[in-house]
């Protein structure tokens, strides 16, 4: 089944006719993604990349039956775009946009409560189900088909992990880039949960970084579930100086689980195969899968 997206997913692009939207939509179509149309307010009725353009997400959904949206609109308008997709009943919204103001995301986060919509991102590379569907900006060829799931806060580090997994003779079921912003739609734990329940995924690579408590939350969940599937973990930022990004008071709320060392310790205690070097992700996964 893979998770989140597959060859039957119908994708629409918000910010379809812009530079970014055009470039990545072209790449997605080349990958074989079932891209059914796009939205650019004011350009409805036109055709772009041989696909119909609509003024609103609602119009696009009505005409095409789209159930997944990918967002490439600028930061000032991105929150609005996410809410528009939610209102139109889109099941999965992937927001690539980087630099959305925090207050906007607080609003979006609240807006999503109780709806049937799942948000991935913002500030993320997107989601890819190998050989089926790419809803993101990642280089598709790196993701060889297989049975390993990847969840990661970072873009290029996801590609790195996928590449190492492939070189170790394994492959990817689905890879999810959840994004590195303070407020994101889908947490590490939620993505892990999806993989744990996916019969096409045998093991998981979990990549985190300093800040926040998401990795610890995911690790505890994995343990509670009886370590159903093996998880290889890496935390970026073991050498990052403290206090560079978080304010004075933030360090208290985040608590002791903020540093790479603390997260790695919790993950190890929860039975995750933690690697210290990013170069060892693939190797370790191969050992675990023997």
């Amino acid at each position, binding site marked *: 089944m893979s998770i989140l997206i597959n060859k039957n997913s119908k994708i629409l692009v918000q910010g379809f006719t812009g530079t970014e939207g055009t470039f990545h939509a072209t790449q997605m179509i080349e990958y074989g993604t079932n891209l059914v149309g796009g939205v650019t307010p004011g350009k409805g009725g036109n055709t772009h990349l041989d696909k119909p353009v609509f003024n609103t997400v609602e119009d696009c959904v009505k005409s095409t039956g789209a159930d997944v949206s990918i967002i490439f609109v600028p930061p000032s308008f991105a929150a609005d775009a996410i809410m528009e997709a939610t209102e139109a009943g889109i099941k999965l919204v992937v927001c690539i946009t980087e630099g*959305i103001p925090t207050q906007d995301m607080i609003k979006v986060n609240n807006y999503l409560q109780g709806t049937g919509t799942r948000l991935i991102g913002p500030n993320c590379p997107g989601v890819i189900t190998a050989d089926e569907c790419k809803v993101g900006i990642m280089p598709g060829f790196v993701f060889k088909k297989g049975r390993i799931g990847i969840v990661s806060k970072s873009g290029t*580090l996801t*590609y790195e992990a996928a590449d190492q997994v492939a070189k170790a003779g394994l492959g990817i079921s689905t890879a999810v880039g959840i994004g590195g912003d303070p407020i994101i739609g889908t947490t590490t734990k939620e993505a892990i949960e999806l993989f744990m329940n996916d019969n096409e995924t045998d093991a998981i690579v979990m990549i985190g970084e300093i800040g926040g408590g998401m990795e610890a939350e995911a690790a505890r969940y994995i343990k509670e579930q009886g370590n159903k599937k093996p998880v290889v973990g890496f935390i970026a*930022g073991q050498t*990052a100086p403290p206090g560079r990004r978080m*304010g004075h*008071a933030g360090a208290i709320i985040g608590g002791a689980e903020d540093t790479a060392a603390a997260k790695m310790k919790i993950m190890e205690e929860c039975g995750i195969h933690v690697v210290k*070097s990013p170069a060892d992700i693939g190797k370790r996964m191969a050992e675990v899968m023997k």
Partner: protein
Amino acid sequence: MNLHEYQAKELLKKYNVPVQEGYACNTPHEAEEAYRQIKTQYGSNFAVLKAQIHAGGRGKGKVKETGINGVKVAKSGEEVTEFSQKLLGGTLVTIQTGEEGKVINKILVAQDMYYDGPSERKEFYLSILLDRSLGQNVIMYSTEGGMDIEEVAHNTPDKIFKEWVHPAGGLEPFQARKIAFNFGLSGDAFKNCVRFVTNLYKAYQGLECSMLEINPLFKTADNKMVAVDCKMGLDENALMRHPDLSAMRDLSEEDPTEVEAAKYNLNFVKLDGNVGCMVNGAGLAMATMDMIKLSGGEPANFLDVGGTANAQTVEAGFKIILKDPNVKAILINIFGGIVRCDRVAQGVIDAYKNLGNIHIPIIVRLQGTNAEEAKKLIDESGLKVQSAILLSEAADLVKKAVA
């Protein structure tokens, strides 16, 4: 983006948040004039001189050159002259600045709030920030004001209260009352506190702060509630909506190399190590730093060149890293996705030739789209650049370079 105390207080006043009033001064002469103003306005011979730098711990910190503390109470015009001369232009070292300290370009000459009156004076702590796990803003407060809040949190966690603000409704009146009750206030002080907290939250929202800390939040002897100190951070992503706030950026407070890097859209953070690095993507950049450490080196910087690693950005990156005399080797780690590796390789070669005099080993690891072609380009360039495709190969090359 951080603001100075004097800037933050000006902004708070626009939201009717009472602050300790004062004047920002660049010279001892201006300080003397400010003192005269304060004396007539508030009828007190006391004034507080506060160094304006982007770091906490100023009161206990000391100016390197003159030995004076970063916050001083002056009891006369003469003392204002003396203290302002000893502060302005000096280098203030506090627990947060590191040994190098920060140069004081401005001081705030402020009114004295610790005057006598009918009731007891009190210091509280109050801050507003984002609770990431809930995606909501939280007000954190304590009766233990004027102290290092991290210490309070560690020693007496029961003295720290939290009030979460609902994202749809905003701060409700009952929440503001609860805070004032928990402070143990009554009468006028209670009413003033409710107003203070309500308006402060409006300021936090209106200015789109990332963090707003009032320490101490001060109850005067005549029951006023006043922000005596204020630390304000603004959400950089929201600055596009606030050009007036953007204009308040004080670049002299930031690392000059980081400011220069930002001009080229490079995300750079200076560190103390001996191996420089240039990477695409923040996560991979942090992971590369970790790998340098595991290979026996110490990362000299964090540098994310973003999605467009071309000859210009690579050259700018080289120049910035090479400014640091401690750098013994540079590792370039690019995972080419949309960016083609052969283009990046050509960029590295061009930049290397343009700069001419690079005397330290350069290790280039290019993986992803056209990685093989890229390696060939580097290997055949005749330059003293070592190439790798696998991350583990790059790690071995770093190991050799720092051995």
